[in-house]
C-alpha cells in the first residue's frame, strides 16, 4: 500500500516570497490534515479536510496561509508571503473518516521549509 506522498521534500526561499506544498493521501482516506512542526516542538494542526470540506482551520494564519482540496483527494498548502518564522517541517497526514481505523493518522515524510 502506498503511503502519503509529499513534494517537494525541501524548499529554501527568501522572506516575502510565496511557496506551495503538495500532498497526496492514502487511497480511500477521506480525511486529510496539514501540520506545522517547528524545530523542537511537536506538530501543530493547521487545517483538516473531510473530503473537500474544511472541518478545522482554527490555527491556520489565514492572512498568509491557504489550503485547498478541490476534488477531495490531493491537497495544496500555500504560504504567501512567507516570513522567517514559517521555517518548519510541513507534514501531511490522512485517515479514514469512520470505522475501527479512524483514530490512526498516517503521515507523509514532510516538506522542510527554510525561509531566509
Amino acid at each position, binding site marked *: 500500500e502506498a503511503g502519503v506522498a509529499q513534494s517537494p521534500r525541501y524548499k529554501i526561499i527568501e522572506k516575502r516570497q510565496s511557496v506551495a506544498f503538495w500532498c497526496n493521501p492514502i487511497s480511500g482516506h477521506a480525511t486529510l490534515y496539514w501540520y506545522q512542526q517547528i524545530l*523542537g*516542538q*511537536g*506538530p501543530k494542526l493547521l487545517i483538516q479536510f473531510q473530503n473537500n470540506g474544511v472541518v478545522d482551520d482554527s490555527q491556520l494564519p489565514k492572512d498568509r496561509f491557504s489550503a485547498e482540496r478541490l476534488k477531495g483527494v490531493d491537497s495544496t498548502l500555500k504560504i504567501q508571503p512567507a516570513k522567517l518564522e514559517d521555517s518548519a517541517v510541513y507534514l501531511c497526514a490522512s485517515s479514514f473518516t469512520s470505522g475501527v481505523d*479512524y*483514530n490512526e*493518522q498516517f503521515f507523509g515524510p514532510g516538506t522542510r521549509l527554510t525561509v531566509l
Partner: protein
Amino acid sequence: AQSVTQLDSQVPVFEEAPVELRCNYSSSVSVYLFWYVQYPNQGLQLLLKYLSGSTLVESINGFEAEFNKSQTSFHLRKPSVHISDTAEYFCAVRVSGGYNKLIFGAGTRLAVHP
C-alpha cells in the same frame, strides 16, 4: 483546552537498558492517547494507542504504555532498548468525539548508545 507535556526533551540510555518516556496530559473530558515515533528524515508512525479497555497497551516492537487516569499520564516504557530505537517520540491526545484532532507534546529524543 487540552495540552500534552513531555517531561524530558532528551533521554540518553545505553543499549539493553530499560527506558521510560514520560507523558502527562490535561483534559476535563474523555481522551484517546497515542505515542508516535519519528525516525530521522521520516514522517511520524503510530507506535501504540489507548482508546478504551485495558489500560496497558503494547506495540509489536516491545514498547508498552499505561493509561493512568488519576495521574493523567501515559508513560511509554521498554524493558530493553536497541540502537534502532533511537528516534524522536511524540505523545498525543485526542478528545473523544469531534474531528480526530490530535494535540502533540514537544517530543522526547531517545538516544541509545552502545
